[in-house]
């Protein structure tokens, strides 16, 4: 559209030129007027363009439509042809009637006897066509064909169960709030607005500037610039009059500076029906944009605009997640638990779900595995050449490796080791890789060595390395790792990698020993111990565990690796270039990794462990390849070591940090959880339901009468819950959402039922009026079905837990119908078995106010799903039960007896005798149910 307008625009522009030149500078106001008229004409021009564009669109559409309708026509004629071939078999009656009518019509016209004969034929089919000419209306001679009656459904609105429907309450009004829906098919969360009116309002308030408006603004801008220029030229034309010139220039300058004058703005605003300020803002924006576009042609400042969101920190991005996401319901904007819940972080770190040693298949073309393989093969050959650097370490390093192999190989910690080694290998690889990448993809490590000497010189001059112990530590680390990796290049991956890790650990200590006396002593200790094999390993283990309470693996690594450390000092000079390489690589990495990517990476490591395949695939898809992630992982890790190494300079304990932060931290967690598990297994043998929880809970279970349901709020205890634990004070059990470790005594431990299916009070969960939770109970599970149409198969196995109906929403299908009783009632769509769960009634433990059951009353006006419409009966076929489901109290309605499809559901509201409406009273016992409660008012049914 804009392009079309340009010729006319230039035509318009000629006017002001003349005006400006003829009137002279002092009549700038006249110029303004002129401009306004020009704007007017532009307006007209725009609408004309609009008409043209519509015409074009219509024409284009028409062309398309012609093809479409022709195709449709072809289809319809095809149908005729297809039919006429068939018609030999059976003429369909419509065609026959059609023909008859036509015949008759012709017959009438020709007044022939033809019509009679044809009608006699037709009588077999009972009815004949009737002609309704304009003058001879013959009515109802065609015998109507009856359509047998079909019973209609009771009126209803198509209603789809959504969690938010279930829990929405009046006071949680959604007007003016953003809502998040879940797309059931895609599982995506979508933000929508419920009421359309809202949207309209929004739109009217903040209408986007349309293309056409922008177009006008641009034109006006051009106009201004033009005026400015013409004024300037005028000024110079009148150069005989100096004063005039000054004035002219000043006017034009103000125009230029201020941009559009108020009058112009006003008129524009009027024509756009907006406020002038809005127009002004937009105008400024446009001008800026224009300049930016111009700039973009020269430079490349596009990225700035483009990736502004990527620069956002992940934490910032996750902020809304933290605030809005309910970890218990796994939805955003949870109506049940509310927004901004306290963040509870579990005291126990979850072991990452995925073990790297299970997967050996590359995840894709950029998988680090395939890249590594490639590099390894090249490196093996290159290592033959030998490098002066390598020589220092090999002897000791080789020994280490072998010893390391021996020690760790037979032990049962294979998994731990492999994990560790994995990370270590990544360390080593990374560094070599970093140097590789600098020199270009084609080269391998040897090339970096060649290039390195040059760098040495540089570094040597500045002499940074020796002065700065930190630096040195880094060098050593990097260098050692590199060397290590090289010499073992041919070796089995696992073992050599672990060696690399050892070096990494030790290095921070080793260096300090030279410069820092304090640390050296500690080093000595370590250095002595490693000298020989296994017996000594215990020593550091004790040491470590005292200090850190840590896994023995890590410590063993350290001691073994100590000896080479001393030797590393000698090499420090050579190593500095490696350091430089590393640093450079880091720089590059840091540059190319955006803040959000880094954040995602960190989360990824938390979730998936050190598995670059999974991290890349799941979190950084499309941003980074597996290989890049792998590199970054190693790089950041070596950083960690370095930093920790700094700490080691001053404090011996520093290295504990290394361990904690680094991979070994992971080991520790895993080990511990396994330890726990083992304990659990033993325990299981003598497990009775009584041991399911702390005895207070047991007490509560056994004498559960009159215990109001308390609302559970997860506690944030970091250690086993003590007296101050919020849960304990509140009188609830700790649940899986609590921060406390699993061993917490206040936890409900779930059941271990295997075959009972948790359907009787044998099951501790059942007895405690809780639903089983697969996260907590040992044997409770359900199968997922065969996957056809996404519908889970019904009860495939006999041993599935039957106590998770609310959790799994395994409810019977219900239909809301007009009740025989009052207003609305319920009937079943299919027969229900006794005690089969019908429906969840309600969420939150406002059930602390649950009714006659527990002395409180449910207000179904506010809460509940459609089953809340089920009616009261003194002789009900259902009963309600409050059940704890994943920390929330819910009310389930269960069948008491066998209920047939179509039968209305009733349950006992448990009216207080004096409040029950007359119809709700049992005929014989009208008033001997329970003690009378506190005086209250309101509807009998739901308010007490």
């Amino acid at each position: 559209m804009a392009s079309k307008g340009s010729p006319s625009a230039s035509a318009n522009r000629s006017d002001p030129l003349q005006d400006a030149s003829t009137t002279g500078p002092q009549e700038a106001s006249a110029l303004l007027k002129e401009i306004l008229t020009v704007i007017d004409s532009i307006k007209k021009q725009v609408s004309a363009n609009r008409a043209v564009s519509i015409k074009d669109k219509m024409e284009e559409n028409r062309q398309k439509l012609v093809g479409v309708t022709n195709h449709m026509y072809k289809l319809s004629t095809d149908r005729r042809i297809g039919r006429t071939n068939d018609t030999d078999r059976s003429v369909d009656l419509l065609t026959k009637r059609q023909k008859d009518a036509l015949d008759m019509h012709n017959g009438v016209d020709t007044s022939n006897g033809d019509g009679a004969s044809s009608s006699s034929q037709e009588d077999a089919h009972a009815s004949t066509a009737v002609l309704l000419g304009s003058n001879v209306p013959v009515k109802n001679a065609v015998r109507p064909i009856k359509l047998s009656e079909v019973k209609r459904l009771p009126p209803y609105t198509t209603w789809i169960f959504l969690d938010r429907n279930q829990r929405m309450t009046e006071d949680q009004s959604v007007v003016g709030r953003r809502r998040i829906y879940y797309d059931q098919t895609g599982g995506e969360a979508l933000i929508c607005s419920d009421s359309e009116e809202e949207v309209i309002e929004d739109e009217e308030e903040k209408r986007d500037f349309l293309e056409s408006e922008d177009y006008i603004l641009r034109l006006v801008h051009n106009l201004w610039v033009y005026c400015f220029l013409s004024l300037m030229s005028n000024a110079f034309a009148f150069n005989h009059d100096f004063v005039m010139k000054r004035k002219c220039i000043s006017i034009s300058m103000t125009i230029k500076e201020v941009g559009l004058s108020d009058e112009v703005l006003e008129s524009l605003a009027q024509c756009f029906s907006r406020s002038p300020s809005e127009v002004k803002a937009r105008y400024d924006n446009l001008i800026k944009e224009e300049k930016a576009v111009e700039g973009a042609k020269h430079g490349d400042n596009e990225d700035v605009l483009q990736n502004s969101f990527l620069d956002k920190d992940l934490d910032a991005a996750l902020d809304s997640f933290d605030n809005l996401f309910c970890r218990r319901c796994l939805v955003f904007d949870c109506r049940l638990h509310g927004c901004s819940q306290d963040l509870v972080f579990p005291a126990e770190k979850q072991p990452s779900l995925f073990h790297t040693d299970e997967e050996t298949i590359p995840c894709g073309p950029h998988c680090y595995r395939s890249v590594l393989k490639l590099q390894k093969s090249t490196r093996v050959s290159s290592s033959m050449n030998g490098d002066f650097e390598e020589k220092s370490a090999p002897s000791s390093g080789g020994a280490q490796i072998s010893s390391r192999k021996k020690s760790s190989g037979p032990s049962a910690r294979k998994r731990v080791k492999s994990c560790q080694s994995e990370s270590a290998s990544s360390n080593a690889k990374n560094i070599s890789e970093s140097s590789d990448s600098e020199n270009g993809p084609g080269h391998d490590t040897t090339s970096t060595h060649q290039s390195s000497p040059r760098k040495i010189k540089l570094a040597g001059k500045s002499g940074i390395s020796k002065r700065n112990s930190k630096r040195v530590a880094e060098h050593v680390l990097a260098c050692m790792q590199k060397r290590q990796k090289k010499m073992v290049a041919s070796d089995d991956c696992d073992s050599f990698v672990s060696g690399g890790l050892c070096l990494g650990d030790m290095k921070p200590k080793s260096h300090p020993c030279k410069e820092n006396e304090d640390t050296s002593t500690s080093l000595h200790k370590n250095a002595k111990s490693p000298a020989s094999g296994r017996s000594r390993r215990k020593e550091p283990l004790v040491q470590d565990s005292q200090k850190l309470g840590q896994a023995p693996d890590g410590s063993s690594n350290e001691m073994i690796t100590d000896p080479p450390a001393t030797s590393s000092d000698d090499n420090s000079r050579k190593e500095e270039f490696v350091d430089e390489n590393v640093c450079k690589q880091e720089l590059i990495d840091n540059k190319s990794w955006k803040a959000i990517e880094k954040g995602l990476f960190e989360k990824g490591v938390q979730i998936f462990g050190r598995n670059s395949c999974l991290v890349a695939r799941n979190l950084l898809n499309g941003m980074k390849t597996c290989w890049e992630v792998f590199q970054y992982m190693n790089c950041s890790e070596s950083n960690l070591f370095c930093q920790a190494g700094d700490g080691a300079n001053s404090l011996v304990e520093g290295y504990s940090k290394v361990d904690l932060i680094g991979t070994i931290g992971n080991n520790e967690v895993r080990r511990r959880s396994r330890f726990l598990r083992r304990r659990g297994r033993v325990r299981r043998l003598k497990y009775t339901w009584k041991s399911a929880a702390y005895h207070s809970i047991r007490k509560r279970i056994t004498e559960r009468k009159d215990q109001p349901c308390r609302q559970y709020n997860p506690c944030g205890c970091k250690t086993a819950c003590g007296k101050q634990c919020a849960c304990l004070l509140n009188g609830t059990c700790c649940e899986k959402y609590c921060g406390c470790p699993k061993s917490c005594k206040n936890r409900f431990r779930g059941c271990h039922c295997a075959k009972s299916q948790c359907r009787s009070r044998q099951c501790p969960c059942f007895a405690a009026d809780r639903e089983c939770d697969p996260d907590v109970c040992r044997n409770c599970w359900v199968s997922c079905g065969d996957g056809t149409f996404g519908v889970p198969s019904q009860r495939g196995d006999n041993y599935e837990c039957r106590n998770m109906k609310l959790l799994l929403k395994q409810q019977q299908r219900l239909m809301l119908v007009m009740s025989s009783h009052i207003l609305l009632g319920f009937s079943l769509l299919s027969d229900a078995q006794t005690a089969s769960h019908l429906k969840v009634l309600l969420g939150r433990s406002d059930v602390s106010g649950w009714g006659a059951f527990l002395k409180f009353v449910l207000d179904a006006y506010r809460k509940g799903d459609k089953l809340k419409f089920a009616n009261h009966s003194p002789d009900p076929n259902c009963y309600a039960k409050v059940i704890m489901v994943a920390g929330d109290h819910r009310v389930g309605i269960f069948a008491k007896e066998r209920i047939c499809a179509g039968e209305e559901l009733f349950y006992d509201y448990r009216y207080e005798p004096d409040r029950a409406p007359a119809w709700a009273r049992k005929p014989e016992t009208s008033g001997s149910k329970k003690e009378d409660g506190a005086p209250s008012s309101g509807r009998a049914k739901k308010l007490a």
Partner: protein
Amino acid sequence: MSKFVIGSEPVVGSLIPSKKRDYRVTNRLQEGKRPLYAVVFNFVDSRYFNVFATVGGNRVTVYQCLEGGVIAVLQSYVDEDKDESFYTVSWACNIDGTPFIVAGGLNGIMRIIDAGSEKIHKSFVGHGDSINEIRTQPLKPSLVVSASKDESVRLWNIHTGICILIFAGAGGHRNEVLSVDFHPSDIYRIVSCGMDNTVKIWSMKEFWTYVEKSFTWTDLPSKFPTKYVQFPVFIATVHSNYVDCNRWLGDFMLSKSVDNEIVLWEPKTKDQSPGEGSADILQKYPVPECDIWFIKFSCDFHYNAAAIGNREGKIFVWELQSSPPVLIAKLSHVQSKSPIRQTAMSFDGSTILSCCEDGTIWRWDAVEAS
């Protein structure tokens, strides 16, 4: 939506008839006392291009247009339930080409009538309230879609009797759905509109496997895994009142509310954010005295013209695809006084039928320009 930003104003057609084509009444018949709500030509099968069906009360009637303004009654069907009031009818056909009539109304039951054997083929029970419109997929005429007061739109396979998809739920209509239409070429798209003043475009692309499966389903229809389509791909609020009729015009949309006009607009979807988008209103076709709801317009086979009745029994025939729109003719007759609920244009637009609230059917034929 009276305010238009400069540069986005629609082109409004002029109400001065162009006299391009002249129509005159050639027949008028009284079908009964009950109002007629729908009349529709058979565009599915070229054999029956001159056959049309009307519904009113509990009756479905099939007629044929003959030369000289003669109308022949071919078939008549009466629902045994006297209270039934059919609101809509559509032609469809079985996969073997048997012509079907699909009618629905107050009871919410869809009647699939096999016009070839003059028997009821199937009755679809499922809608929870009255059915306001039924349309047939032109490319696969055994698929029909129905719009209902129960706020849902349902896609049915009349061959197997399966309810394939239900377009309702979180993103669905919030009040009665009044009209629905299949996209002429994009088989996945439908549009629906209703009393919540919105027009929603739905895509069943992701669910197409279910549509295909419905043709080969041999089990009970009730066992079919009917899917909910909860989110439309586009929601437009073009009107500020009930939207009671909408039709695709190629990729554009014709829709009408009770504002005395038909609006042609272009849905502009945003790929990144499904469900959102804007409507660019291109043209307007004024229709005076058309301010009650449930008045529907109809187009000829090639979408060259649309005819719409009004509250006072007049018919406006608009040339749809010209810009600015041209009023082809304004049809009025002294005796035609009651509201015209729906019109039907024949294949080439030479015949226009209107069915009125007083139970009359009017036939208008184009006068040959000689």
